């Protein structure tokens, strides 16, 4: 069937609109990269948009030489790896046990977990708790309080529920116990959901900053997001509440901020094209529970 003239016109406009959306979505990224390679003078006169002006890589050299940046970057990697590992172990155990229909108390336990999605203790009681547990200024304040995401747990649970019961029956006839069944039969068959969950957790830990902001005061423990936040807050000259220390009051050059941002998002940008399909899978799994 032939397309009408109006529909052809619409399709041209549609393509233009979508390209415009892509451009607007990517513009802030392009702008940050352009600024990171530009000289201070051009940025301050507002002349850098899509392409670097006064091209230089000196700023990269300056930031790369800052040992605190790398200490903080290393912390981010450690918190991400340790946090993701803890989260995966706890989430898998919880999801697997709750996925078994024969589990006594399955429904109340699920409700017990789901309730925490909609009602939480709030900022201050959490702060008091973490401090009274002596976790302030340790990695545990970053990786333990959010160890199980109930949303992720429910995705995994519904994935396990869809596995045929015969798997478990066959395995137990072969003499495997529950741990063996989970480790040797179920998990190898769940690679897709495990990859998705690892990515969900890893991105969340990589990006997190607020718990570090609340519980860590020693620069050596900061993740790179706090390094960046202090830099950003400093540039608005201590007006932001929370930006108090004296070194924040000095103006930090815009190109240094841009370089730091580029270096922080670089790992995410590099793996993003290869892993984004797992995220989409995760969202889909989450919606059908």
């Amino acid at each position, binding site marked *: 069937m032939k397309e009408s003239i109006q529909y052809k016109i619409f399709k041209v406009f549609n393509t233009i609109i979508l390209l415009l959306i892509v451009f607007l979505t990517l513009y802030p990224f392009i702008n940050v990269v352009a600024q990171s390679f530009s000289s201070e003078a051009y940025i301050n006169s507002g002349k850098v948009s899509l392409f670097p002006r006064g091209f230089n890589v000196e700023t990269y050299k300056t930031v790369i030489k800052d040992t605190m940046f790398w200490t903080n970057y290393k912390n981010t990697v450690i918190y991400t790896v340790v946090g993701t590992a803890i989260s995966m172990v706890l989430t898998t155990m919880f999801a697997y046990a709750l996925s078994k229909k024969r589990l006594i108390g399955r429904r109340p336990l699920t409700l017990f977990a789901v309730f925490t999605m909609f009602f939480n203790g709030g900022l201050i009681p959490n702060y008091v708790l973490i401090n009274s547990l002596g976790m302030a200024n340790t990695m545990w304040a970053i990786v333990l309080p959010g*160890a199980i995401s109930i949303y992720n747990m429910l995705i995994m649970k519904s994935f396990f529920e869809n596995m045929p019961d015969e798997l478990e029956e066959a395995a137990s006839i072969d003499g495997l116990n529950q741990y063996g069944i989970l480790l040797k039969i179920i998990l190898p068959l769940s690679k897709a959901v495990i990859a998705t969950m690892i990515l969900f957790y890893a991105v969340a830990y990589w990006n997190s900053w607020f718990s570090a902001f609340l519980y860590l005061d020693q620069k050596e423990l900061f993740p790179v997001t706090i390094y960046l936040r202090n830099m950003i807050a400093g540039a608005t000259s201590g007006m932001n509440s929370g930006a108090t220390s004296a070194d924040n009051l000095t103006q930090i050059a815009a190109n240094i901020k841009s370089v730091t941002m580029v270096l922080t998002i670089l790992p995410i940008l590099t793996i993003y094209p290869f892993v984004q399909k797992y995220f989409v899978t995760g969202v889909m799994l989450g919606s059908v529970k």
Partner: protein
Amino acid sequence: METDVVRSHTAAGTVQTARKSKLAIASAKIRKDWQLYTLLILPIIYLLIFKYGPMVGNVIAFRRFMPGGNIYGEEWVGLHYFNMFINDPVFWNVFKNTLMLGGLGLLFTFPMPIIFALLLNEVKSRKFKKFVQTASYLPHFLSIVIIAGMILQLTAINGSINALVEFFTGSKITFMQQAEWFRTIYISSEIWQGMGWGAILYLAALTTIDDSLYEAAKIDGANRWKQTLHITIPGILPTIVTLLILNIGSFMAVGFEKVLLLYNPLTYETSDVISTYLYRIGLESNNFSYATAIGLFESLIGLILVLTANSISRKLTERSLW
């Protein structure tokens, strides 16, 4: 198992024996399956300490709390702290700001993924569609610190937005220092962050629409616009309704971290929300009990909204969160 229960009913005739044998069956089941139950130990301890612990900690909203003292407070003061915020004009301003940011945010951000999904649905080339989608998801994966950094950079006096503003008006705007701009900036950036990602569920719903409906409509002479109105939109309507209700349920949960990173005293008039206000009261002025009372009030409203939204969703669309 059932015959067991029935027999103890008829033979002994007491409920007690029935209960006993039920317990015996349960404990036999647990013993046989004990390994499965051991998997629950750590997650339950986790939930009790890190999720239910702070809920109990809310008791300090009703008790006087001394930093460094008992974590459950020193003495009962009843509703003292609740009376305090009800009579606090700043509280009502931040309450209004929360409603405004949440409400306007919902109004402007909610339709965007739907429109975006409908536009994408008209794209025939799979490659182009994939490219647009991949680009549009990207902001979703960034740290809020990076997003705030980008917003500050774009709205800066020498930033790209001001370059445009200057081109058209000849003057510049100090966006982040003016209270009247905060909502616009906040909501535009929400759209930027969430439009692509939010479209995923709609795009999935679009693929489930039966192609034969379109074929039939074409034979009846319906053009693409009519097909969109009468087939496509009704096809994704259940998804729209469900997501709308759930979004209404969580609209009070304004992005605390983003506001905290973007606001400053010059914009408090519009930017300060309940969560940032209680953050300052609690952690900057060390008034823990007062801040907890405000937080508890906010959480309770949030809980009521979610529960209401969920029960409405269950009635209307037979879909709910649990």
